Structure formats: structure tokens, C-alpha cells
């Protein structure tokens, strides 16, 4: 049963990922990424990470990707052909990616760690539940939690700085006038 779930999730995640880089229209790429994220959330569930899975779907696949869709729609799905880049790079990039994959796989498969080669140790029933994650966040990782919230705040400020209240045509003639 677990195998079936894993392979279903894996096919979804991998298919989504490949679609992201293969599709020409960024709009479809975003949609593919959403598929990828939801499949990953499934895998997280199998790994007993309920809270992460929920956050993945609600926050990530839900909110962030919607923002992404809006921007893509606003900027316009700029069609770009994949097969026109600098000669060489398009051959080199897959090669590099393949080399990276092989290297990582060697590390993962070649490791002598017993824990990795098994299904994992027995774990308490509330492993990965919102309660136990929350407890960790507020006790051992309090600083991390606060820093992450600071990061969100500053990202919001940054977005406003970059994209917010900008009326280019009005500000240009106003140079020096509104001091």
C-alpha cells in the first residue's frame, strides 16, 4: 500500500517538475508546479509529516502559487522557445544535471547509515503533528520562529518598495518639485 502511494506521489512530483522546465508557457509551468507541490504533500504524509503536508497545500500550493499565477497573468505569458539558447548550454545543462543526480545518488545509496536504509525507527504517535511541531517551534526553535516572522515582514516591505505605489508617469515630471 505504502509503495503504491509512494510511486503515485513520486510520479506526480517528478512529472510536475519536468513539466515546469519543459513547458513553454510560464503560466502552465506554474500550474505544473502546483501539481508537483501537491504530490510532495502526499509524500510528506507518508513520511508522517502531517503538519508540513497541510502547510504545503494551504500556504504554498494555495497562497503563494496564486500570487504567482496573478503575476504571470499580469506580466503576460511570455512565450519563449526552449531550443534557442546559447549553443552548448542546452547540451551542457542536462549533462550537468545528470552528473549532479548521479553524484547525489551515490551519496544516498552508498551511505553506511543504517537508519537511511530502513523504513526508519519507530516513532511516537504524534510525530509530525501540529502540536509537537508547534511545541518545538516555541521551545527549542523560538529564535528561528521569530526570525522567520521577521523575514516575512521584511519581504512584505521589500515587495512594496519594489512594486508598490508606483506611478512612473506622475513622478517623472515631479522631479525636484515635491521636495
Amino acid at each position: 500500500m505504502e509503495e503504491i502511494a509512494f510511486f503515485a506521489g513520486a510520479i506526480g512530483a517528478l512529472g510536475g517538475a519536468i513539466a515546469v522546465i519543459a513547458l513553454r508557457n510560464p503560466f502552465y509551468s506554474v500550474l505544473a508546479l502546483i501539481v508537483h507541490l501537491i504530490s510532495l504533500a502526499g509524500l510528506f504524509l507518508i513520511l508522517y509529516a502531517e503538519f508540513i503536508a497541510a502547510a504545503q497545500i494551504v500556504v504554498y500550493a494555495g497562497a503563494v502559487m496564486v500570487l504567482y499565477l496573478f503575476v504571470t497573468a499580469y506580466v503576460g505569458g511570455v512565450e519563449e522557445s526552449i531550443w534557442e539558447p546559447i549553443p552548448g548550454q542546452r547540451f551542457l545543462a542536462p549533462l550537468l544535471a545528470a552528473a549532479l543526480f548521479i553524484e547525489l545518488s551515490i551519496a544516498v545509496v552508498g551511505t553506511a547509515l543504517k537508519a537511511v536504509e530502513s523504513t526508519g525507527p519507530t516513532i511516537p504517535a504524534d510525530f509530525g503533528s501540529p502540536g509537537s511541531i508547534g511545541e518545538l517551534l516555541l521551545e527549542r526553535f523560538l529564535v528561528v520562529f521569530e526570525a522567520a516572522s521577521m523575514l516575512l515582514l521584511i519581504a512584505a516591505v521589500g515587495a512594496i518598495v519594489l512594486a508598490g505605489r508606483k506611478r512612473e508617469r506622475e513622478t517623472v515630471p515631479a522631479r525636484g518639485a515635491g521636495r
Partner: protein
Amino acid sequence: MTFEAPDIDYAGLSPVLALTVGVVLALVVGLFGSGRRQRIVVSIFGLGTLAAAAGLCIWQWGESKELIAGALRIDDLAIAATLVAIVSAAFCIPLSWREESVERPLGPTGHGEFQALLICSVLGMTLIAQAQNLIAFFVALELLSVPLYVLCGSATRREQSLESGLKYLIIGSLGSATLLYGLAFVYGASGSTDFDGVRAAVGGAVVDDPLLLIGIALAAAGLAFKLSVAPFHQWTPDVYQGAPTPVTAFMAVATKAAVFCVVVRFFDVALGPAVGDWQPALAALGAVSIVVGNAGALGQDSLKRLLGYSGVAQAGYMMVAVVAASEAGVSALVFYLAAYALMNLPAFAVITIRERETPFGDHIRAVDGLGRERPALAAALTISMLALAGLPGTVGFIGKLFLIEAAVDSDYTWLGVMIAIGTMISLAYYLRVVAAVWMRPAAERPAGGAMPAIAGGSQEADTAGKGVRCRVILGATLLAAAATVFFGVLPSPLVDWAARAGESIAALP
């Protein structure tokens, strides 16, 4: 469910708290007023925050304790790196006055946002310098990077600035993702996210496990992106050139200080038992960086690009100190970081001033004949260049001396020789700037004497604020240049300070 709030040592955490409050204050104060009044008020708050944080750091000097369930650790190394970051941020604030990107009244970035972003980046640096576990390390790295991406792109009118912001974001995120993957492997191999736990596990059976090795390699590559160590440096000159100059100054100096601090903790301490795994790799990175950076700087006509490549080379020099993996190495690193700040900031200040005074931007022609026109500025730039080249009588010489000593002491004499060779190559371009300053006549300006296209704002506004701006910037520049010479002649105070920082890492030989 029982919930136990962790024990919080507010004294040790005080610099972080001060900076956090500062970010919020700068944002709130920035909402009121506009133009000149806004600039003054926000700057008072911004500089006040930095001064308070610096004061609290000095108050905590000599402490060595874990904060908040072992996630952070405040010790002399962390404080030293934080102070370098704070000083460069404080230097950057006056530089940003009348900068086109922040001064435009109706534009997107006001002084409030600008300084909030700046202080937030300092906050990230403070946290990363204290980080004691992988998660805090990662989130702090982002906390320092994300504001920098925005600051680089903050001159939204200039295409260059936006491009540099996007480029920095993409490369920075690529680095983060690589680092994250490496950290994940380190976590997987050791089963712990705490540096102590990693150290304990690495000291055990996993030393030669492929999982750990690949993890270390990926983490080193990711950090090399952030430190602009070759061959992960390609973004550096572009981003340095495109970003507003005050931001470049801050980015060049402070980022290195903070990230090198965590590199010491991560490699020298957490991965200390696996020293044989990473030492040759980092040594190679350092050597490549020295050669590539210095060679790249040779033909550059843009001063910011030149300093960008020189930064690549200098990062290589500092990498040598990490490779030494000894107390002397950490001391040398801290000394060099402080020296690096003192040497670089005046150079960037002079570039900023000349960008506004001449139509040449950051082209080397902008400083032609500076020796006759503005002797004080010329002297500051000269001292800074000579110090970067490591000539005696400046803090740069002592810094190199310290680095070479650490390298030789750890049986990496060839890296010491690499530093010497790099310095030789670097003379060619540093001296080119000095020669331009003193030995060439001033470049002819295009007819009309118009202000450069990039220096926005009206002529009127520029002359109005010129007096104050120049005096403050000039004062700070000359102070830094004087310190460069002072600590070159009497280095003992700075050496003691650096040695204390080195001693605070107990795990090193």
C-alpha cells in the same frame, strides 16, 4: 500538552532585540514627514539603533554563553563580526543621503524603508554570527540576504539596479538552495541540527560517509556563492556595479564579515573532526579565488567592478584563514575582516561622492586628477588602495601578515605564497587607480556640465544638502582612512581584539 517557554537571557539577546526594534521604528518613523525632515528624523533613529546595538555588543564583550535553548551563542567572535556589520551599516546611512533611489519624494523607497531594510540585514548578520544550529543558520542567512536583494534593486528607475537585484536574487537563491541541500545531508548524516550534535556525530562513525562528504561539498558551494568565492563569483562584479553604491559598500563589507563568521562555526567547529574532508577543498577554493579575482580586476575601467573583483580576491585571502582551522586562523580572519571594512569603506565613499560630482559615474576617469582637485578625498582613496594592496604602514599589511602567519603555522605555506602572488598581481590595478588620482590631469567633462543622468533629484536639491552631506561623509571617510593607517602603525589594540575573538572558539587548537 505541557509547554515550557525556554529560558531567555535578555542581556545576551539585547543586541538582537535592539535591532529588531530598530527595524520597526525605522518603518514607522518613515511614514511621517517627507524630504529633508524625513531624512533627518529617520537617520537619527537608524543611527541611534545601530549605536545602541553596538553599545550593547560592547557591553556583552567577553561573555560566552548559549542563548535560547542553544540556538544562538554570543561570544567574542559573534560580537566582533556584528560590530563590523554595524559599523559598515552606520557608514552606509550618510552615504545614502541624497542617493537618487531613496531621496525621491514620491518614489517607492523612502529613507524609512531603506534604513529598515538595512537594519534588518544587520539583524540577519547578527543572528548568523551567533547561530548554533543549522536551521537558525539558514534562516539568518536569508534574513540578511532578502533585504539586500531589495536594496540592490531599490533604485527602481535605473535598469541596471533592477537587473542587479534580480541577478543577485537568482544567484543568491541558487546558493541558498545548494546550501540547504548540503545542510539537509549533514543533518541526515548526523541526525541533529545543532552544531554540537553535528560535531559529536562527525567525531564518531560518519566521518567518511559519502552522505556527509557530499553534504559538505554542497554546503561549501552554497556558501561560496554568498561569499563570492571563485568559481562561484560571476555575479559579483555585475551586482556590485548595478547596485546603488552605498548598498554595494555595505554588501561588500558586512556580508563577508557575517558569513565568514558562520563559516568558521560551521566548518572549523561543527565539522571540525572532519577537517581532512573539507580542508583541501576550501584551500583550492581560496587559491582559485585569489587568482581569478586578481586577474579579473586587471582590465576593469569601472571602479565598482574593480572593487568587486578585488572583493573576490580578498575573499580568497580570508578563506585561507578558515583553511588554517586554528585559533590563529580565526584571529587572523577577524583582524582581516575589520581591516577589510576600514580599507573598503573609504573607497566606496569616494566613488559615491565622485558619482554625484562628475558625469563619469564609477568610471576610473571620475577620479583622474583628484589629487589636485580634492586632496583630502584623494588621500583617503590612496590610503584605501594601498591598504588593499597590502603595502606596509597600513592595516592591510598587518592583515596579510597575520593571514600568512596562520597559513604557514598550519602547514599551508603554499597558500601563504598564493597570497603573496595574488598581492603582486593586484598591485597592477590598485596602483592604476592611485596613478589616476595623482599622476593624471582631471578628465575633461562633456560640455554643459550637466549632472550625470543617473544622479536624480534636481540641481537645486543637490546644492542645498551638499554642505552637510559632504562634511559628514568626508569626516567618516577620513576617519576610516586614518584608522587604516593608525592600525597599520600601532596594530596592537586591533590585534588584541581579534585574538580575543579567536580564543572564544574553544574547540580549536
